[in-house]
């Protein structure tokens, strides 16, 4: 790709970007959110057709002008988007050949389709039956089905937009080794990822994009450090990826004792088993664990029993038992839960920033059930300044904000509810390095104000970087509790493994 420039009304998304991918290369594209990575790949795959951008695409030496995705697919360029494009109700086979049905004259040859699908599944290392509906598969397997779908189209250049964002460690590794296999077969891959470690381990070339320009292309075979990549991404040295913590920890504010929760559908399946934990004023307590360890389920269950079927357990605040049997009660008792999935569960996207910020505490801007819009705007502007939310005004729709700013709106909402205990579930998922640092700073400041913070994250460096104390969860149980000083990535992983071996019935998904 040579000299690609793409503008949207008011912004230059890509400014004279050139990128070259060699045959059989794994080329990683890194950069902060909004840097232009996805836009570049959309130009390459024909989502933005020829004529909507300036510059030239050369594919195998020839000038390529794609009018749509089909045109780029015909040459073997296949893109797998971050949001999976599978139809949950349809079977694996139906999904793989969707739009490319096997058969003739409008008739589908099912035996041929299933047999080809089986071959493709084998290539990506899946042994599920081809007539399994895709919704029955986990996210990791769904991702592999997407890749099998790509392979069904004779791919020469595979573009993956954050393929491992939703995957756990094992599935990520599986996927990455698959890419290595493709490399051996001469298939090139472009990998967009936020996980620097992963990029470092697999890529041959790393191109860093910032503000719509290529900052540098690094030859990864020579060895590139994580700090080196991050410096390129943010344009400065991040000597501290985490703000300094100077914790003044007080008394125990919030405590959960012997919490048990059953699966919402299968009554006999216990998802949370006898979990007890506590958090002190001014303390940041991390809950580490792999995906499916039950952390979100536990947190949501404590927050007004919003997940699963409550079986038993007590919640105490300042030593006294409190009622958390419904969400309004939990909020009333000073508990707040900021969800891991801000778009589905955190925000009313069609509403503006101010409406979202005040939603959990409308009493705070009203008297006798009558709202005061000026008070609302004032409150929203306060949080906008305090959390540095970038928006044209508090009347801007939440849907147009970047991930980091959306997350800050969710945090503002809960801060305005004035909780004593703040449960943050993956608050930095899918947001860029700069915004992550800001979120950490906010968390520190909240703790400094005496709030008790429970911080759930799948990224171990992050948990280690900002917690004072860490609980490790696995299989719905507390596997270990350790102070920040004792904890390390190794000790956390060991605790998870130890419990995994001890539990003879295996880990509950």
């Amino acid at each position, binding site marked *: 790709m040579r000299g690609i420039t793409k503008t949207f009304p008011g912004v230059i998304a890509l400014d004279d970007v050139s990128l070259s991918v060699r045959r059989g290369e794994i080329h990683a594209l890194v950069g902060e959110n909004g840097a232009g990575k996805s836009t570049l790949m959309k130009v390459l795959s024909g989502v933005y057709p020829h004529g909507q951008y300036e510059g030239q695409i050369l594919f195998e030496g020839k000038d390529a002008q794609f009018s749509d995705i089909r045109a780029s697919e015909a040459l073997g360029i296949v893109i797998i988007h971050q949001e999976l494009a599978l139809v949950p109700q349809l079977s694996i086979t139906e999904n793989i050949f969707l739009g490319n049905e096997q058969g003739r004259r409008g008739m589908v040859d099912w035996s041929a389709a299933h047999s080809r699908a089986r071959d493709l599944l084998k290539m990506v290392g899946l042994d599920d039956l081809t007539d399994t509906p895709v919704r029955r598969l986990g996210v990791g397997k769904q991702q592999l089905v997407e890749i099998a779908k790509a392979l069904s189209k004779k791919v020469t250049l595979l573009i993956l937009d954050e393929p491992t964002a939703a995957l756990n460690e094992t599935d990520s590794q599986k996927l990455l080794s698959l890419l290595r296999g493709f490399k051996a077969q001469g298939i090139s891959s472009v990998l967009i990822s936020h996980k620097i470690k992963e990029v470092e381990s697999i890529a041959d070339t790393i191109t860093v994009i910032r503000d719509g320009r290529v900052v540098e292309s690094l030859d990864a075979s020579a060895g590139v450090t994580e700090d080196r990549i991050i410096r390129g991404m943010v344009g400065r040295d991040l000597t501290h990826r985490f703000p300094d913590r100077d914790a003044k920890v007080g008394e125990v504010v919030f405590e959960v004792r012997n919490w048990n929760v059953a699966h919402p559908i299968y009554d006999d399946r216990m998802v949370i088993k006898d979990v007890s934990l506590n958090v002190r004023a001014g303390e940041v307590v991390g809950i580490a664990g792999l995906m499916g360890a039950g952390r979100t389920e536990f947190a949501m269950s404590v927050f007004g029993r919003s997940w699963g079927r409550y079986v038993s357990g007590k919640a105490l605040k300042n030593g006294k038992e409190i009622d958390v049997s419904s969400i*309004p009660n939990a909020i009333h008792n000073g508990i707040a839960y900021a969800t891991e999935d801000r778009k*589905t569960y955190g925000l009313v996207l069609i*509403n503006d920033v101010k*409406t979202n910020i005040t*939603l959990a505490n409308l009493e705070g801007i009203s008297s006798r059930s009558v*709202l005061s819009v*000026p008070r609302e705007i*004032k409150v929203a502007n306060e949080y906008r300044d305090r959390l540095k939310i970038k928006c044209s005004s508090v009347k801007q729709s939440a849907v*147009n904000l970047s991930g980091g700013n959306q997350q800050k709106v969710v945090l503002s909402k809960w801060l305005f509810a004035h909780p004593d205990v703040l449960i943050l579930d993956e608050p930095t998922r899918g947001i860029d390095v700069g915004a992550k640092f800001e979120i950490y700073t906010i968390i520190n400041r909240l703790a400094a104000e005496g709030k008790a913070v429970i911080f759930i994250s799948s990224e171990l460096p992050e948990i280690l970087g900002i917690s004072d104390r860490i609980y490790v969860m696995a299989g719905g149980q507390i596997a270990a509790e350790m102070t920040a000083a004792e904890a390390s990535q190794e000790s956390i992983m060991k605790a998870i493994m130890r419990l995994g071996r001890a539990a003879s019935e295996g880990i509950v998904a």
Partner: protein
Amino acid sequence: MTQQGAPHVEIGLGSADPSRPAPTADSGERLLTVLRNNVRQYGMLVALVVIIAFFQFTTGGTMLRPQNVTNVFLQNGYIIAMALGMLLIIVSGHIDLSVGSVAAFTGAIAAVVMVDYKLDPILAVLAALLVGGLIGAWQGFWVAYMRIPSFIVTLSGMLLFRGLTLFMLNGQPVGPFPGSFRSIASGFIPEPIGSIQDPLGPDQLKLTTLILAGLLCAGLIFLDLQARREQLKYGFKVTPFGQFVARNVVLIVAIMYLAYRLSAFFGLPVVLALVLVLIAVYMFLTGRTVIGRRIYAVGGNAKAATLSGVKTKQMVFLAFINMGVLSAVGGLISTARFNSATPKAGDGFELDVIAATFVGGASAYGGIGTVAGAVIGALVLGVLNIGMGLMGIGIDYQFAIKALVLLGAVFVDVRGKNKDS
């Protein structure tokens, strides 16, 4: 000036550069953008004015005769009242197909207790409203707590309450009613002050109506000024004073013209007074109360609303109770208007009411819609009905034209939203 393609922002700069268009064109362009932004905001209002002007022209001035202006409200009062309820239902992410049958059933109840049991009209009205609320609770229970799609529940309600209407009336019309009940739909407010000769025309103008309209204008200006003062107090940007004055002048002219036409006939219809009160109440409810805000949040994203402590089921339940009561209001008005309760009453109301709400800009996906929009939507359809009737257009064409207006309005709305995002 090197930025040829940059948008022209300042007029002064334009005249300094010969390559730029003359200042007049520039300010014309500015006027256009202002208009374009306002068309998006007031699109249906502009459409309403255009439609009225069109009929005024094609009917040779008959459209805005006092009697026809009065008829717009007499004929559409119940649609507006029910559209207010439907707005909340649609905003909360649901639909109610049963409103026509519920209106018929509640009207039938009022008719039977008045005619067969000689009950006082006031008690009859209260009974009908109560039954409306209970019906709303019944349907709301199934939708909100039993999680049955509102389309199914209210489709069932549509059949159920039509059947109960037939049962109540034994298949026969019931009427006539006492004058006090009939006046809900066809009466006018008393005019104790008398009237004056219209200086511009042959009619006598009812003074009370004109004075009430004047008071309404004064009240609206007062509220607008107060809102402005409050905004200034908190240090917010306010609309430029010129625009503020222009907006109020347009509003006052519209209200006073309407009052002028009404006063030349019998004055202010009771049903219009009733509807105006309802509009004011629902504007306040949707814009300024906690419960209104919560209903919008439920329709916008029910999951996020639940996790923010909103009792989503309760909100939907309340929206349906409200709809039931307003269906009863609609049923009472239409029953009083026809001076009899009939088995076929309310037939097709649901379509007019739902169409009015969507023409007024409510989103079929929930979370978006305004009271003003729903009212304007109802008026657009009402004016179309009367105007086409005056032009002598056949009922067959009337249906087709209304259908295309509905589709066109929603199309323009959807396209506008896609461009925004």
